[in-house]
């Protein structure tokens, strides 16, 4: 899709998203706030796994760290939530970078399991430092009211804030992946030896990507602390990290749009599954997962891209006269 169409589509979608508070109830807005938060978290994971090829099964840990940083700042030092979000982002950037450096030595599967271990250890660590984190009781927060006397509810204000942060972070990410840095990231993913021969500092880029990825997920975590108004170790178990992985694969690896779609999947499909079957809702969810992977093995964004490619290809080759090429032949070999 060319740049202009893409930008126009983005503007339309964003405008639509901003209009939701006008006709949506508090509960639905709350759900869509969650979707925005998940989208940011997924964008973070996608930068690392989709664009840079480093598997992480531990992003729940950064989400938790971001959430607790925000909660502790609000609860212990009465800092306004607005400030906690960038602080959470920066701190997670540092933690991610520090984790990424030694993790460079680990390949694929082993990296995934090392990050998995991180995600597993986090609830236990949170419970241990009771004085800061409130232990298993967690920290209860208060939802912020709309400032400047605006006549909107807390839900609406929170949604607008979250949406704005989401838009900003997505624009930044989209620019990142289209830039030289983004190309370097993808090059490392596809063939890091060739990339290094071309002068890409693989070690630096991989660690940086880890850091940025952690920062995104940390920001999402901080937002979630405010939206739910409560943090507890039980909210950040292993299944959260697995859910993020599901989100990016279903949405589409190495795709910016895919993260929004993936976020909607992980937010709404479990609820639909419950509506379909009270007895075994997660079985229905599992069937959804497997079904999606059969029909769209490259995620929703991947499927849309392939569909578009096949359309373009058949039109182009028809114009040139002769046999339409298959979309397989038209795709770049490295993907």
């Amino acid at each position, binding site marked *: 899709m060319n740049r202009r169409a893409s930008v126009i589509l983005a503007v339309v979608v964003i405008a639509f998203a901003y209009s939701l508070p006008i006709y949506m*109830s*508090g*509960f639905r807005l*709350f*759900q869509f706030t*969650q979707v925005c938060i998940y989208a940011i978290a997924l964008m973070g994971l996608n930068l690392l796994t989709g664009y840079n090829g480093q598997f992480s099964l531990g992003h729940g840990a950064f989400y938790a760290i971001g959430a607790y940083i925000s909660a502790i700042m609000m609860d212990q030092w009465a800092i306004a939530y607005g400030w906690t979000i960038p602080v959470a982002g920066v701190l997670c950037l540092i933690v991610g970078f520090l984790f990424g450096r030694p993790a460079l030595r680990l390949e694929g599967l082993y990296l995934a399991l090392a990050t998995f271990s991180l995600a597993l250890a986090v609830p*236990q660590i949170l*419970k241990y430092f009771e004085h800061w984190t409130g*232990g*298993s*009781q*967690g920290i*209860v927060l*208060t939802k912020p009211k709309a400032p400047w006397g605006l006549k909107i509810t807390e839900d609406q204000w929170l949604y607008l804030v979250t949406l704005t942060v989401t838009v900003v972070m997505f624009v930044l990410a989209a620019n990142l992946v289209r830039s030289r840095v983004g190309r370097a990231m993808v090059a490392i993913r596809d063939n890091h030896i060739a990339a290094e021969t071309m002068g890409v500092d693989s070690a630096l880029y991989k660690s940086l990507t880890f850091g940025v990825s952690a920062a995104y997920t940390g920001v999402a975590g901080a937002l*979630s602390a405010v939206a*739910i*108004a*409560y943090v*507890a*170790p*039980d*909210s950040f*178990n292993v*299944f959260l990290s697995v859910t993020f992985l599901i989100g990016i694969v279903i949405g589409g690896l190495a795709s910016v749009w895919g993260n929004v779609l993936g976020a909607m999947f992980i937010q709404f499909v479990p609820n639909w599954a*419950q509506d379909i079957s*009270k007895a075994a*809702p*997660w079985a229905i969810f599992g069937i959804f997962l497997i079904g999606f992977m059969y029909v769209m093995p490259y995620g929703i964004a991947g499927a849309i891209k392939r569909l578009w490619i096949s359309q373009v290809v058949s039109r182009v080759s028809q114009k040139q006269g002769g046999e339409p090429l298959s979309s397989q032949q038209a795709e770049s070999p490295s993907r």
Partner: protein
Amino acid sequence: MIGRKLTAAVLAGALLGLGLASAAPAQTVVGVTATEIKLGNTNPYSGPASAYGTIGKVIGAYFKKVNDEGGVNGRKINFISYDDSYSPPKAVEMVRKLVEQDQVAAVFQTLGTPTNTAIHKYINQQKVPHLFVATGATKWNDPKNFPWTMGFQPNYQTEGRVYASHILKNFPDAKIGILYQNDDYGKDYLKGMEDGLGANASKLIVMKQSYEVTDPTVDSQIINLKNSGANVFFNITIPKFAVQAIKKANDIGWKPTHFLNNVSSSLATVLKPAGLEASKGLITALYMKEVTDPQWSKDKGFTDWVAFMKKYYPEGNLDDQSNAYGYNVAILMVQVLKQCGNDLSRENIIKQAANLKDYDLPLLLPGMKINTSPTDHAPIEQEQLAKFDGERWVLFGEIFDAFRK
């Protein structure tokens, strides 16, 4: 021209009429119609606490029975229950759905401490009755700050204190070893015991060992506890680990005075698998009739429950104490609704819930009653110690009443 003006006038009139109609007082009572009362609930039907999901199911089954018999004051109970997977964010989402979308009259028996903590503020802000929460934490009995919330079972800290006072009275030179689950449930019991032991707590407790729910066994912890020389053992474990603890202690020849928390007091799920001989001498605090204990087999409350289970919840386990618990609390909820009569407003529901006087539930121990008041939001505050004699829990001592102490 006339046509257009007329149409416009008619349309305006219609819109005005609609506007007036919707401005007229809305439906009087949330969640209630002439034929139905909506009650909301979330339960962990999946995830780490899914063993408790049966509570939501047995409550639904009981309400079906009540509906079959005509409902409450002519209204059927519409019990809407969602899965929260024991996750606080999910609980918040589902409770908001119940309150804002499903418009329930009251939220009832939401399960778990972290999940209930997450919705505590919200539900009080929304002024929705938050009744008989399924957790043993202490914070639900706080009518001054959270007037819409009400607990149900005796809280864990009270139970810990019951054991502590028994130890102080009967084992003055005790050396106490404690095994606890590393979460709010375990820590609450721990606090109760430590508070109950008072100033001497740090001298009397010689060792504390924790475990995570994801650990495979607690054998290592039991070994350490024996090695500490403890002669009194406070066992704060869920059934799966309680079995291991009792077995291992027996195997390595450690025979302390063994206090087992109420959560794991089931004969069928804990004592029998651990070994009835190995379980002899265990002490626990009870407030309910334990459904696999042979002493209740002819008791009317018990036989009624079995008949109910067979007819309305046949796939439920007759060995599962949770099914008795859910049955009991559902009966209490129905009593509250009955006391409301025809005024099923949220204000009256919480008012009636705080107005239970000496009410008897079929599966409570004999002599124990439900009591609530506007300053007392804890329905059950009585417990009694029992010792296992190899066959059944033998109640002894007096009924401990936290309210009166």
